[in-house]
């Protein structure tokens, strides 16, 4: 008799379990509208701790997560993941941290998302690819509301994409850091005053027999030649074609011409090389033939440069360039690094919360302090860490004159060939058909 009772009880429990499962699924699809981030969350803006409740973990205990981060960040990332494990020690989370650079992370995710990391860092130009492939999981609306309230608008905007099942925009990644380039210079060569104008910088470098280095043969930098003339990227349309603003072709061509002219006028001073050549170019040793006076580089290299230059280290927003007699501010591409949550994750809740933690004020501050990564969190932007850092300040100053790099199509190769063409020896800036080149490049982006 006892046996029968036990069996019946067990069967009932089983049915109940199934029923609850079904219910969960059912209520899930009905509340699908939750995906579009509404701002009716009372804790929005109060940060990570206020928003994560114990119940958010659901039934996930003993979660095993894999996290990808770039080499430079790997030590700190491991430390932050350990802190996360400690914080939720009762959940018995294990985290495997694997080094993976941001650009290969997206490619590898697309090769096999199931074998990929649960939480991973990637560069914002890969965002649309990952969205297309359906790899990114949308962010829980409660966290999304808090992220929206605590991070700068541009970084939140580019982390949004249309949620196809609801038809509304939703947050698909956590902003991690701003990532861009600016002017770095040796104050003993280029004075702070000179640093405001491209022509003055080149002149100063030439006078001191030093080089000015930027990577013309790289779409990330070369896009400044057209941005400065007023061309803007405006996301992708529904066929995944790159959209542009209503730019004036003549103005863009004039800007391209101005850059090309400087490259040719200052041949021997203006040097196109990978940015890796810049930090070592500032170190002066007797054996080094190439000495650098200034260059366009990003915050990932500034630690090395400031060590090499000491008190002569200068960083500022990009200078102006003289286009048809008018000094025009140079516009740049401003990228972001994001933290994505793999939609294939076996522990979607824990993965979301970990991603949220890594994007939190606490972690952003640590990255700013230890790696010099520019924060997106408003509180950290306002903090002393940033204000005392010349490079991050320069980056933030430049961000006003920049085009956010998100939802971009295959622009890099076409812009790269544009840059190379402006620099080429056989391009005569006086007679070259810049408008024709521009048309070709635009056609190829959407070809």
């Amino acid at each position, binding site marked *: 008799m006892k046996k029968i009772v036990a069996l019946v009880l067990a069967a009932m429990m089983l049915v109940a379990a199934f029923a609850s499962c079904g219910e969960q699924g059912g209520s899930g699809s009905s509340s699908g509208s939750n995906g579009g981030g509404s701002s009716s969350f009372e804790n929005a803006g109060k940060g990570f701790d206020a928003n994560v409740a114990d119940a958010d973990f659901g039934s996930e205990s003993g979660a095993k997560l894999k996290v990808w981060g770039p080499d430079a960040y790997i030590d700190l990332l491991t430390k932050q993941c350990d802190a996360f494990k400690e914080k939720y020690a009762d959940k018995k989370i294990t985290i495997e941290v694997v080094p993976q650079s941001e650009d290969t992370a997206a490619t590898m995710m697309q090769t096999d998302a199931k074998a990929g990391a649960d939480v991973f860092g990637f560069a914002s130009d890969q965002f649309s690819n990952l969205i297309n492939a359906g*790899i990114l999981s949308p962010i829980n609306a409660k966290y999304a509301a808090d992220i929206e309230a605590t991070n700068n608008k541009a970084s939140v905007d580019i982390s949004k994409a249309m949620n196809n099942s609801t038809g509304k925009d939703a947050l698909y990644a956590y902003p991690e850091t701003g990532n861009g380039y600016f002017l770095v210079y040796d104050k003993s060569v280029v004075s702070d005053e000179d640093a405001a104008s491209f022509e003055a910088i080149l002149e100063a470098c030439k006078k001191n027999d030093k080089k000015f280095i930027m990577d013309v043969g790289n779409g990330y930098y070369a896009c400044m030649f057209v941005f400065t003339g007023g061309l803007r990227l405006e996301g992708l349309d529904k066929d995944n074609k790159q959209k542009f603003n209503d730019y004036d072709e003549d103005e863009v061509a004039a800007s391209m011409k101005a850059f090309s002219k400087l490259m040719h006028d200052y041949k021997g001073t203006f040097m196109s090389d990978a940015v890796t050549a810049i930090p070592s170019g500032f170190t002066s040793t007797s054996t080094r033939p190439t000495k650098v006076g200034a260059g366009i580089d990003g915050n990932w290299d500034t630690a090395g440069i400031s060590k090499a230059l000491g008190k002569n280290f200068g960083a500022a927003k990009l200078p102006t360039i003289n286009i048809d007699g008018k000094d025009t501010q140079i516009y740049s591409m401003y990228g972001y690094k994001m933290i994505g949550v793999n*939609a294939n994750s076996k522990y979607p809740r824990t993965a979301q919360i970990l991603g949220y933690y890594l994007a939190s004020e606490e972690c952003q501050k640590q990255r700013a302090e230890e790696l010099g990564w520019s924060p997106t969190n408003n509180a950290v932007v306002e903090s002393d860490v940033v204000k005392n850092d010349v490079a991050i300040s320069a980056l933030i100053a430049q961000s006003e004159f920049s085009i956010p790099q998100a939802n971009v199509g295959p622009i890099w*190769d076409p812009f790269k060939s544009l840059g190379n063409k402006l620099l080429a020896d056989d391009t005569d800036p006086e007679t070259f058909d810049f408008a024709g080149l521009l048309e070709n490049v635009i056609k190829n982006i959407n070809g």
Partner: protein
Amino acid sequence: MRYIDYMQLNPFQKFGYNFTQFFKKLPGNIARFFKFLGRAIVHFFVAIGKGFAGYGKRFVKGDIFVKLSYLIFGVSNMVRGQIIKGLIFLLTEAAYISFMIFFAWNYISKINVTGTAVVGGQEIQVPHSLGYIAKREVYTADGFPQTEFVDDSMLILLYSVLTIVVTIIFFAIYIANTKSAYKVYEAKKNGETIPGFKAEIKAFFDEKFHITLMSLPCLLIGCFTVLPLIFMILIAFTTYDKSHLPPGNLFQWAGFNNFGQLVNFAGGDAKARTFLDLAGWTIIWAIFATFSNYILGMVVALMINKKGIKLKALWRTLFVVVVAVPQFVSLLLMAQILAENGGALNQLIEMITGSHTPIKFLNGTALSARITVIIVNIWVGIPYTILITSGILMNIPADLYESATIDGAGPVKSFTKITLPYMLFVTTPYLITSFIGNINNFNVIYLLTGGGPSNPDYYNAGYTDILVTWLFNLTMGEKQDYKLAAAIGILVFIVCATLSLITFNMTKSAKDEEAFS
């Protein structure tokens, strides 16, 4: 020319004669090749027809066990004493059926269905999809998103190809089973002894030895070369690209659209233009790369092997070391040495001439970059030619050279009139292989210039890109145009395969296979 006339020519003229004949026969051989191709296809279908006829005949003639074997494998064998063989047949059947039920059906049934795409909250029906729906996104009560991935078009295609290949193999086993069933039935009826399992195994080490030798390599090649190849060929007929990326999206069948884009020369399409230009440069590159290595390599080999030159081993080693260093190391190193800024060669030039403007070897004009890659390819390739030709050069009959010297020929003349024709004749297979190798020479171009200097007019390609590096860029680069890459691959393959089949079957080595028997 009659044989007797041919014999009267001096050796010198003989080679000339053979050489011209080779090219004279070329058009005829091409025509023959296509005729052969047509015949082979006809043969194939005739053979299938015959197979079916035999299949039916055996069924009618056989007894109940033979007939039963048509449904349950191996029955006839087992009844007549070949237990193990019968069991193997039966196990194959069971394995195939469970493979179909538990694995394959889930994929192959979705190979061409009407799929559903969700765009902006709206469901759209898409015909000719691989799979019904890619993913569903739902939210739990507390707002956590949960994504359920349903059909992955790429896996559906891949595993369907796998299923088809397995099915073909299974069908072959099935036919073998019916044949074997009938054979044992006849043997029993005629009172012959039926070979036991051991005897059959023994045959695999003698008269059927080729099956033993070939089956494992064939299995591996089939699995890891042929199967992926069919998969890739099929990709060319789909819409698989950046906007149709699995697992988030389905892709569809597209017919010949992708090929249409590639050959749409009149439409001013950047893809067609790029294809045409790159195909031209690929051919030029292959010709230059092949013959420059070949001729210069032979000249160096002749110099090393010349009578009276000492330290032959040292000279040879100096060159051959380059072969031994892994190519991607030596090429990356070369790219570094030739770099515009801080490259070793530019430093050397600066030291010697004192000029401060570095030469743009790899990123200057299209012409200079192309010449540079050809020259670097000579550096990489000559050692191979030295290795291969040294032995043969020694075998050229000395009297040929003597008679030439008596006729007053200098070293240059005897090279162009004797050595070159002789070597061309003897090493045609090697030349063809290296020509095709150069058409597909990914390493030299990719590691040296990466296709650059870039050309804004091309669709994701540069001036030194050859078709195969373009294909790589389209697959692994930012365009992610898989379908187009697959279509280019097919076209390149057709050219290479036709070329090599024709020429290889023309050479003496294929005809005189049994020369030594």
